[in-house]
């Protein structure tokens, strides 16, 4: 096997630093002080942003104050709205996990710890900018005012589910809110966002596109195709790469994270890149606004790495205790986005513990009301789904003969199993 004096080759298989039970030490994680990162002009050469790909843009300091040129200077009312949207997202997540455990749906995915990446991004974009989310951006839907009850209807796959019970829970679609249908296949939305942005540029529109994916999915070919196309056509698109450190049980090292930052991929494509503290809502807002302004000024695409931490399991089907140290989350050096924004608001005298408690109660009540309203439309596996015949609709614009035949067969099978069955009675009145 060996050839003379040549050294034996060895394969490096990445291994995360902290497996279950391990003590964690984040001393090697470079977290620069807030406010120290320069903020180039939005229309700068992409190269001027490249040092920031290896740095970390931070605004909120240890003193809970906003620092430096990236401070977006938001007024207290806007900050309170941001806090509330993040708290609402977290309350929604908590309630949906409970609903899943109660058997009202099959599956759910929380965004705990990552709320800023979606909520602050939504607030930084224009409301009609088209967003192509991945599966952990419920905060985006909530921030854009997509009704909670519609989200729960979809999660419960009930008779009011706008998507007719076809999609896995949380794979929403919200055209009215300028949010694209969520796929479930990873990274496919990235080139699609570029295509939308190219179309907007072809038409001389002023709207831009923005896309999300996780650091794990950045290994997909779609990510690289998207960045190539965006670079080639200078497409008006903001790429959000949410580095939450974990892709189910695979740590970021399996996407190349041991070699360089994910933001650094922008350097190779010659597009603007920013690496930001994703648990700092002000940094997220400032970076996305910067990139959106840049895209809108025809100055090109930006890749933003939101450096954050997936504080919970991948989904309700996952137990992270099997593969990573629980101490990672509790000792995460960048803290929690909701807690940090709350402390900031308190530090600037715009907030207090009493108002926080009242807000928490309000968002919880808001979620409970939405769940109650949705439950009236049914839950998964407990009747009240969409009419049976709708299973065959929307495969094509019109039903071809072979689907007509297959739908007849499906209806026939129902009648064999339940002779009294009627498609309309099965789903309740008015559907």
């Amino acid at each position: 096997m060996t050839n003379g004096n040549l050294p034996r080759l060895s394969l490096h298989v990445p291994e995360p630093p902290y497996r279950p039970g391990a003590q964690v030490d984040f001393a090697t994680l470079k977290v620069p002080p807030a406010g120290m990162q320069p903020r180039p002009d939005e229309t700068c050469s992409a190269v001027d942003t490249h040092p920031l790909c290896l740095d970390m843009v931070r605004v909120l300091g240890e003193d809970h104050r906003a620092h430096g040129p990236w401070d977006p200077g938001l007024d207290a009312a806007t900050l309170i709205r941001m806090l509330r949207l993040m708290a609402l997202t977290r309350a929604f997540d908590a309630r949906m996990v409970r609903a899943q455990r109660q058997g009202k749906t099959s599956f759910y995915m929380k965004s705990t710890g990552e709320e800023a990446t979606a909520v602050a991004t939504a607030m930084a974009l224009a409301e009609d900018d088209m967003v192509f989310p991945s599966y952990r951006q419920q905060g985006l839907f909530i921030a854009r005012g997509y009704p909670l009850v519609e989200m729960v209807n979809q999660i419960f796959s009930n008779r009011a589910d706008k998507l007719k019970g076809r999609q896995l829970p949380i794979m929403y679609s919200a055209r009215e809110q300028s949010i694209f249908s969520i796929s479930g296949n990873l990274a496919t939305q990235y080139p699609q966002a570029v295509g939308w942005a190219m179309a907007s540029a072809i038409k001389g529109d002023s709207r831009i596109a923005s896309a999300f994916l996780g650091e794990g999915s950045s290994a997909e070919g779609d990510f690289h195709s998207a960045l190539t196309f965006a670079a080639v056509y200078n497409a008006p698109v903001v790429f959000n790469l949410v580095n939450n450190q974990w892709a189910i049980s695979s740590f970021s090292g399996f996407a190349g994270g041991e070699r360089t930052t994910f933001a650094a991929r922008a350097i190779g494509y010659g597009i603007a890149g920013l690496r930001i503290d994703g648990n700092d809502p002000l940094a997220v807002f400032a970076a996305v606004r910067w990139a959106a302004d840049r895209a809108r000024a025809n100055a090109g695409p930006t890749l933003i790495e939101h450096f954050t931490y997936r504080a919970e399991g991948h989904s309700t089907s996952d137990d992270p205790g099997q593969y990573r140290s629980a101490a990672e989350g509790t000792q995460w050096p960048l803290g929690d986005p909701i807690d940090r924004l709350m402390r900031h608001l308190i530090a600037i005298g715009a907030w207090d513990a009493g108002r926080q408690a009242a807000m928490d109660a309000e968002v919880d009540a808001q979620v409970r009301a939405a769940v109650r309203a949705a439950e009236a439309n049914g839950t998964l596996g407990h009747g009240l789904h969409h009419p049976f015949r709708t299973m065959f609709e929307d495969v094509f614009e019109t039903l071809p003969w072979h689907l007509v035949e297959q739908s007849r067969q499906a209806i026939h099978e129902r009648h064999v199993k339940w002779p009294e069955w009627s498609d309309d009675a099965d789903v309740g009145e008015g559907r």
Partner: protein
Amino acid sequence: MSDPAPSARRMSMIEAINDALDVMMARDCAVIVMGEDVGYFGGVFRATAGLQKKYGKTRVFDTPISECGIIGVAVGMGAYGLRPVPEIQFADYIYPGLDQLVSEAARLRYRSAGEFTAPMTVRTPFGGGIFGGQTHSQSPEALFTHVAGLKTVVPSTPYDAKGLLIAAIEDNDPVIFFEPKRLYNGPFNGHYDEPAIPWARHPDSLVPAGHYRVPLGQARIVRAGEAVTVLAYGTMVHVAREVAERQGIDAEVIDLRTLVPLDITTIEASVNKTGKCLIVHEATRTGGFGAELSALVQERCFHALEAPIERVTGFDTPYPHSLEWAYFPGPVRIGEAFARLIAA
């Protein structure tokens, strides 16, 4: 041969495709054309020649060599409201774009319950007979007919190529438009050792000017007959017809034109009349579209059948370069199948 009407002229298939794109770009500013080498150069087969000059670089442009990217951005463009017509330079190269076609374009209408659609027509040259070797000769249509939500179209004449391409571009569902590249410049009849025949001598090279549609989902009876039904598409329509005529077989040759949606009515009527069925395609045999056709005919016309259904196909090997004509389902293979059916 009669003189062309003033509003029609003789075209090769490649000219007819170019004309369809021209007509649609002029009619609908949402139509854009993109792909590798399609812009200034006009495409490796010249399908897009002159279009960039006429419609500008933001409507006709070259793309990076990334089929995933080409199809992926087309989905996003469709969601915006454009009607992209991407070209995949060879069907053999389409595989990197498969996830975007199969998981995204094909299912977007369904998964979003109609909120978003991906109207696009993916044009791609396919089939062999040009010494393209295993990477420029494949016929992967069965991979696409298997996918719920995709329409699959294969023209066999210049007239149909233009009318079907216009119908495909106007269709609101994603369409894979396979162009038999051996037919671009002439109606190849399978006799590779005889002089090539130009389209100008073929009646279906007379292509009307302007806009017309050949509807998706309608087959065409190319040659009426009583003895045996032939189901074919693309290049094999011409090859099968030639064999029937040289052997003096009264075959009814049906050009399917669209595989999905399939014109089952025309197929059933013909097989019920002739009682015999020959299916011909150039693609590999196992799991080919011929298997689906064979099953449908058996299910629907069993009592009319007087002989086992015959399938003539390419062999289950990669498309060989030097032995191209040994692979190709040519006159000998088809002729023997005809003979078996007639003798039955």
